[in-house]
């Protein structure tokens, strides 16, 4: 029984974060797309069936919450993990209320990140 490769989208304006997440998630057997802004991310999501989206909260032009809101409208079943460098409790709660699947602060706990990513790949 051959399974298709899972596609994952990383939206983060930091090239270092993009690269580290890309390498990490590729190790889990996924095909990873990266972009630095929300608008490009939306465009990519319309043309690819992503199994999971990792989305930075603090980005220029269109911030993560705005992207989350729009993504949830168009792709309600795609799990979105919010990532952030700031442990702002209100922001975190707001994102979860808006339907984010999970919320992960930097610096990443990679064990937790792995479990979170795998859980979406298994269960969504």
């Amino acid at each position: 029984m051959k399974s298709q490769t899972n596609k994952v989208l990383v939206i983060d304006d930091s090239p270092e974060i993009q690269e580290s997440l890309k390498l990490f998630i590729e190790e889990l057997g996924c095909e990873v797309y990266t972009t630095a802004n929300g608008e490009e991310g939306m465009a990519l999501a319309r043309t690819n069936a992503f199994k999971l989206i990792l989305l930075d909260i603090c980005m220029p032009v269109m911030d993560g919450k705005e992207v989350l809101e729009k993504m949830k409208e168009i792709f309600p079943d795609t799990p979105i993990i919010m990532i952030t460098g700031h442990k702002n409790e209100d922001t975190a709660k707001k994102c979860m209320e808006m339907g984010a699947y999970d919320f992960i602060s930097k610096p990443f706990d990679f064990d937790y990140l792995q479990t979170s990513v795998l859980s979406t790949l298994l269960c969504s």
Partner: protein
Amino acid sequence: MVEPSLTSDIISQITDKPAPQRLRIVSESAKPSQRTARTVLQHLLRKVSLRVNPDFLLFNDGQQQGEKGVRTEILDTSKQMYFRLVKAYNSVCDQLRQQNEVDCSPMLQHVERTVDILKHDERILMGMAQAPLSYIERMAEKIDYPEVVYYGINTMIYALQIANSLGFPVDKINYLGMAALLQNVGLLGNDATETGARFNDVIEKLKSSTEQSGEFLQRIRIEGFHHESLEAIIDIIKSRETVLDQTSLHDTLQQYAMVIHICNVFVYLTHERNSDRVVSPTDAMKIMRSEMKDFFHPDVIKLFFNKLSIYPIGTFVKLSSSETAKIVDINENYLMRPIVLVVLGGDKEVKLNKQRIDLRKNPNIYIKKSIVDDELTERFIDYF
């Protein structure tokens, strides 16, 4: 019938009392020939127009209204049912090894009871399915064939939980329960052997009892039960090629077999086999994910983890706050963010205030790792 003049007296007597005393006071106030304590209490409440849930007054052990604790009666019923099933199955195993015909109707009654309890409140039974073997043996009795009895019962609980949540037909669900309970019965013919921790070791062990399963299943008698269906389900479980057949997913027996098989593999991976190799549910998920994609239909894998979660109810975790907590409920579709009850502080101090944390509403706290600790599990077995 309780005298009207006594109504207010009784209400004032029971208000500040713990549940067992309330029940006794109300029971003593009613004429023995007439109503149960519950009915008397409802009568009393109507008389004084108290808009309080009588269940709360009778059975609430000091928990605040609104908290989703487990009622005492469910706690006791679930545990006692589990222990009785252990004893019943132990007895059946002994008989199967010695007799050509064994009446297993009592076990079917336990399966039916399990279905009812899981529908009512699954948390205690799900927690019991995580309880260490040593605890079960101490509370019930020594289990001579743990892979048949202990694993069989826990596989049944998981499989029925999935079946209930999927709305499997009531008249069919007992077959799934019995098949889950009995699927390792072939191991009664083997001497106890260790199972390796690798996924393929588990699969090979489960297949190894195929021929002997049939021999023992032939000896089972259950009144009113369609025996051939039971054997058919167990045959399918043992047949690797059939489980892989995607086109047969619509077949009911196939569905049942797949649900049971995946539950059984999970039980094997996460239950005690020897002191060196203990796999947490999260690690089991990772193992199953990497090994299962060529073995199970992906929908079944998804179903299993969505229904039982990667942090099953009754398991323990370490939080990012350094506290230790017990998983007491699942936020469906948000598996990484269950509801937990803190049991130990960061300094390992026991926490008795039953602090519940919904990790979805408290996203700055997260689960650092699963903990497998028999002592912890046993100590907080009733903690919900």
